[in-house]
């Protein structure tokens, strides 16, 4: 049953991607439907549905948070670069994450690379090593907030 | 305005091509070649040939770059990161 649901969701997502890639060309829709169903079935074989499903509302909330913060990140970098004194205090910081193994941790590591002041360097088990632009900032709190949003995404 | 774009493309194509040939550091030559591939793709775009641009971006800038990187890593294994800074070819 979970398989059928996953297959339907993946087919729908692939159809949206196909629709975007062909720029809505109706002549290609038939191929798209066939390809989407086929790829969804094959993907189920290689990537069986994992236990924590991302929840839609929380995913959108995280996406909003991420977009806002990545804009802050760009502005922050620009501000530092354009100021003549070049205010930087680079350094490493190790963060122990409470997120579950697999997708949540991987998402946190990748998202942090685009959030202000952090760049994820290594991920070993639950130890996430970050490179920070300015170690005097409350980086730890920022990371904890991003982690909180991701945790809500995969909750339940 | 577009003559400026085309002129810049022509000059940069020549510059990158010469840079690839003159660079004595092989890795630098490969990265320059990848840059040349992207600029070549842009030149095809300006010549109204998006299909060739697609092939150039995929093969010239992408796959050939990867193959050449592989070749370079076989040539100078382990020596790459110890180059003295500011060395000019």
């Amino acid at each position, binding site marked *: 049953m979970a398989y059928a649901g996953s297959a339907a969701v993946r087919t729908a997502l692939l159809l949206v991607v196909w629709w975007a890639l062909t720029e809505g060309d109706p002549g290609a829709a038939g191929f798209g439907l066939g390809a989407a169903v086929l790829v969804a079935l094959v993907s189920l074989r290689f990537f069986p549905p994992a236990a924590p499903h991302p929840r839609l509302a929380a995913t959108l909330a995280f996406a909003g948070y991420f977009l806002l913060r990545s804009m802050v990140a760009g502005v922050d970098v*620009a501000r530092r670069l*354009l100021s003549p004194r*070049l205010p930087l205090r680079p350094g490493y910081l190790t963060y122990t994450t409470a997120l579950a193994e697999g997708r949540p941790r991987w998402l946190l590591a990748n998202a942090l690379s685009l959030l202000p002041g952090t760049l994820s360097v290594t991920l070993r088990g639950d130890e996430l090593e970050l*490179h920070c*632009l300015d170690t005097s900032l409350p980086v730890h709190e920022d990371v904890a907030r991003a982690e909180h949003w991701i945790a809500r995404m995969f909750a339940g | 305005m577009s003559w400026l774009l085309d002129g810049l493309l022509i000059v940069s194509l020549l510059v990158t091509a010469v840079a690839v040939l003159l660079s004595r550091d092989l890795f630098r030559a490969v990265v320059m070649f990848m840059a040349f591939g992207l600029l070549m793709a842009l030149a095809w775009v300006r010549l109204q040939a998006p299909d060739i641009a697609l092939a150039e971006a995929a093969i010239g800038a992408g796959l050939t770059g990867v193959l050449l990187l592989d070749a370079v890593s076989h040539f100078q294994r382990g020596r790459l990161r110890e180059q003295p800074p500011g060395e000019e070819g």
Partner: protein
Amino acid sequence: MSDTLLLVLQALLLVTGCLFFAVGTLGLFRLPDTLTRIHALTKADNLGLGLIVMGLLPAVAGPATAAKILLIWLVALAASATAAHLVGRALRAMEDGDDGSGP
């Protein structure tokens, strides 16, 4: 009236996007080491790309084309986050005295 407003907004977004790309390139020259350069490049360039995408959206033909542009932006975002992480990890591994030649 609202058409002019849209055009002004579009021009503003495109120009700001260019500015952020300029900052990314500037970072490539002003910053002292490779890791900080990765910071500047990924963040500034992605914001620049995002702004340019937003600036292009009102001009495109239909919703499917808009979706395609957004899809390309997402791919570029994921690609640059992954690339930044990979280069950072490689540099860190070399700092630890592992010259990478492997066992």
